[in-house]
C-alpha cells in the first residue's frame, strides 16, 4: 500500500492524460481540465510547506548562532512584512505592491544584469584557442557577436567577387549549423523526456517516491 498505491495512481492519471490527447470524448476533456485545476491547488498548498522550511532554516540558524545568523532576521522580517501587507492591506494597494516594485523587482533585475559582467569574464576565459573544439566555440561566438552589432555591418568585403557581409555569415551560422545542433539536441531531449515520462507512468521510475536502490 505504501509503494504500490502511488504507482497505481500514477499509472491511471498518466494514462488518462495520455489518452485524452487522442480522443475528443467529452469525459476526457472534462477530466483533463479538472486534473489541471487539481495540480494548481496541490502546488498552492505546498507553498505553505516551502515557507515553513524557509522559516525553520533561518530560525535554526539564529538559535544556533551559526555564521551570519544576524541576517536571518532580515529574511524573516521581509517574509512577515510581505505576508501581513497582503493580508491587511490586500494586494492591490499599500505596502504589498510597494515592496514588490521597490524591493523585489529592482533586486531581481540587478541580479539578472550581473550576467553582463559574468558573460564578459566567462567569454574571456572560455574563448581561448586551446583545443580544436574551443577554437570552434571562439570562431562561432566571435562571428555571431560581430554579426549582431552595428559595427559588424561595416565589416563586409568581397571574396572572389562575391560580396559577403559579416551579418549574412553570422545569420547563416545561426540559421544552419546552430539550428542543426539545436534540433539535434531538441530531438535527443524529446526522446529522453518521453522515455522518462513513460517510465514514470509505467512505474519503472520510482526514485521520486524515495526508493533509490
Amino acid at each position: 500500500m505504501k509503494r504500490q498505491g502511488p504507482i497505481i495512481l500514477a499509472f491511471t492519471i498518466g494514462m488518462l492524460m495520455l489518452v485524452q490527447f487522442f480522443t475528443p470524448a467529452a469525459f476526457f476533456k472534462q477530466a483533463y481540465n479538472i486534473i489541471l485545476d487539481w495540480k494548481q491547488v496541490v502546488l498552492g498548498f505546498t507553498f505553505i510547506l516551502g515557507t515553513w522550511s524557509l522559516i525553520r532554516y533561518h530560525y535554526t540558524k539564529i538559535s544556533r548562532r551559526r555564521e551570519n545568523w544576524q541576517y536571518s532576521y532580515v529574511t524573516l522580517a521581509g517574509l512577515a512584512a510581505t505576508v501581513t501587507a497582503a493580508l491587511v492591506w490586500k494586494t492591490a494597494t499599500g505596502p504589498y505592491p510597494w515592496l514588490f516594485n521597490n524591493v523585489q523587482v529592482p533586486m531581481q533585475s540587478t541580479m539578472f544584469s550581473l550576467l553582463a559582467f559574468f558573460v564578459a569574464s566567462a567569454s574571456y576565459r572560455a574563448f581561448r584557442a586551446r583545443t580544436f573544439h574551443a577554437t570552434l566555440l571562439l570562431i562561432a561566438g566571435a562571428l555571431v557577436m560581430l554579426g549582431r552589432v552595428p559595427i559588424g555591418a561595416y565589416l563586409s568585403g568581397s571574396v572572389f567577387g562575391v560580396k559577403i557581409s559579416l551579418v549574412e555569415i553570422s545569420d547563416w551560422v545561426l540559421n544552419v549549423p546552430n539550428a542543426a545542433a539545436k534540433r539535434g539536441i531538441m530531438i535527443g531531449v524529446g526522446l529522453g523526456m518521453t522515455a522518462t515520462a513513460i517510465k514514470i507512468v509505467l512505474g519503472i521510475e520510482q526514485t521520486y517516491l524515495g526508493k533509490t536502490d
Partner: protein
Amino acid sequence: MAFYDRMMSIDRRIIFLSVGLAVAIPIIVPLGFPVQVSEETRSFYREMAALKPGDTILLSFDYEGDVMAELNPMAVAVLRHAFSRDIKVVAITTYAGGTGIAERLLTEAAARYGKTYGIDYVFLGYNPDWSGTMLRLGESFKATYPTDQYGKSTYEIPIMQNVETYRDIALVVSISGSALSEYWAIWAGGRYGAKVISGNTAIQAILIYPYYKAGQIPGFLGGLKGAAEYEKLIDEPGMGIRGMDAQSVAHALMLAFIIVGNVGYFFSRRAQARQSK
C-alpha cells in the same frame, strides 16, 4: 610574471569595472550607430502590417521585471504599431510579476493614441497555470477569463463580444523571456491553428530559430537589437535604439578581452615551445 601571462590572467574585477564603464558612458553620452534590419524582424513586421483595422490581436506579456529592459521596448513598439492602425488588443500576462508592467505599458500607449478601455483594448490579467490557460483559450476566452483584471465580467466588455476562441484572434503576439513563446506555438498554434509571432530576449530567441525555420513562428524579434530594428521599421525610436549604442561599445570591449587572452595564449605557447627545444 611574463607579459603574456598577465594578458592571459586579467583579474575578473578589472573586466567587471571596464564592462560597467563601457555601458554607463554611452547611455549618458549617446553615439548613434546605424541599425541593419534582420530577416526575422522584417517577417515579424510583415505579420503585424498585414493586420486590417478592426482586427484583434492577443498580446501576452510572458515576462516579469527582471527582463523588462530587453522586452519592454518590444511591447511598447507592438502597442504603438497596433493602436496607430486601429487594431484591437486583448492583453494577458502569464507571469504574476507581469501585471504591473502590462498595466503601465497599456495605459501609456492607450493615452498616446486616445484608445478607450473595453472598446479598443482590454487587460484580462494573470492566470497562474500558463499551459492550462493557453489550451483552454482554444475552448473559450470568457470561460478562461470570467473577469478582466479589474473584476468586470468579460461578458459585458464590448471588445470581448466577438472574441470567443483563437479563431476570432488575427494574431497572437507573445513577448517572452522564457520558453513560453514556444509553448504558444505548440499549444495555441499546433493544437488550435492560431498564428503566433514572438518577441524574445536574446537568450530565448536563439531557441526560436528552429520554430522560425519550421514556420511554427513566422516572425520574431531577438533581444534589444530586434527591438531597435522593429522601432526603425515602424519609425518610433525608443529604448531599443538608444540601448544599441551602449551595446556596441560593450561588444567591442568584450571582443578586445578575448583577443588579448588569445594573443597572450599564443605567446605563452611559443615561449614554452622555445624552452622545450
